[in-house]
């Protein structure tokens, strides 16, 4: 049972109040008509399945009914941050890799 910080209610709530809606930051193409079938197929059906950092769209369905994004680690299930729609994540695969490299640099 995950414990999730709702960025609109500004507090932790239990997973049962939420629904997950898959990968975040999948923008609807500006001009769908200009998309090839392959591009449109990518938009509708194809999603990443990373081992590690994953940005996800969630909705606080039993609470404020607002959608928001969560950065979750798919192995540990840690939720590293949640942020509002329109905002950018501060924890990314790149930022984690950089932090790791710098930590190793210090100890080495």
């Amino acid at each position: 049972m995950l414990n999730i910080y709702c960025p609109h209610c500004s507090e932790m709530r239990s997973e049962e109040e939420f629904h997950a809606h898959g990968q975040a930051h999948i923008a609807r193409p500006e001009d769908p008509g200009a998309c090839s079938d392959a591009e449109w197929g990518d938009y509708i059906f194809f999603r990443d399945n990373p081992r590690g950092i994953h940005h996800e769209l969630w909705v606080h369905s039993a609470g404020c009914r607002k959608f928001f994004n969560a950065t979750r680690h798919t192995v540990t299930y840690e939720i590293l941050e949640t942020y509002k729609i329109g905002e950018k994540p501060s924890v990314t695969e790149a930022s984690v890799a950089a932090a790791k490299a710098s930590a190793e640099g210090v100890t080495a």
Partner: protein
Amino acid sequence: MSNVNVYKQRPDAAQAESPLFHASLHELVGKGSRNAGVNLREKKLLGHLTLRGDASDPTFASGVHSALGMELPVALTLTSSGDTSLQWMSPDEWLLIVPSGEEFAVEQKLREALAGQHISIVNVSGGQTLLELSGSKVREVLMKSTSYDVHPSNFPVGKAVATHFAKAQLVIRHTGEHTWELVIRRSFSDYFWLWLQDASAEFGLNISQ
């Protein structure tokens, strides 16, 4: 005003059945256990309005204030004035509960005060009802039912949250040290009624009017 349909929906006099009408609560008054840990009453047939608007727009907040005489409550709180209460539901949504029959006039007043703004006011009076639970064991009944932390350190008087409850959803409002309100949807009201009877059985349940 003309671009929305504002309609007086409650009749001045007609047979009314609140969502828990079928439970005949009035016949159960006083028949529960003495020293019951939980007292329940339905605060029925009140006017419920869902208000939407832009909280960050000062003219919205001031419009609401001029119409209701109340400040917009901040996240997860409830403000009351007499029999009227205003509750934060979401960053752009509030639940306004007024005495039965006042909802039409209040909506008109609000629309007047907020004229020209992008807002929405929806009468949902028939769709929900208010249950008041009071007594020393209410907190335990709530703990049986919701994963939300109802300890006073997390849920002081004046707080109000929408959350998961049993296998459904509702709003919990902490209105007094041992007094709580549940805002429940009409169609789920029988489920909640059965659930509350069962969950409070070990503490004793009393129905009050």
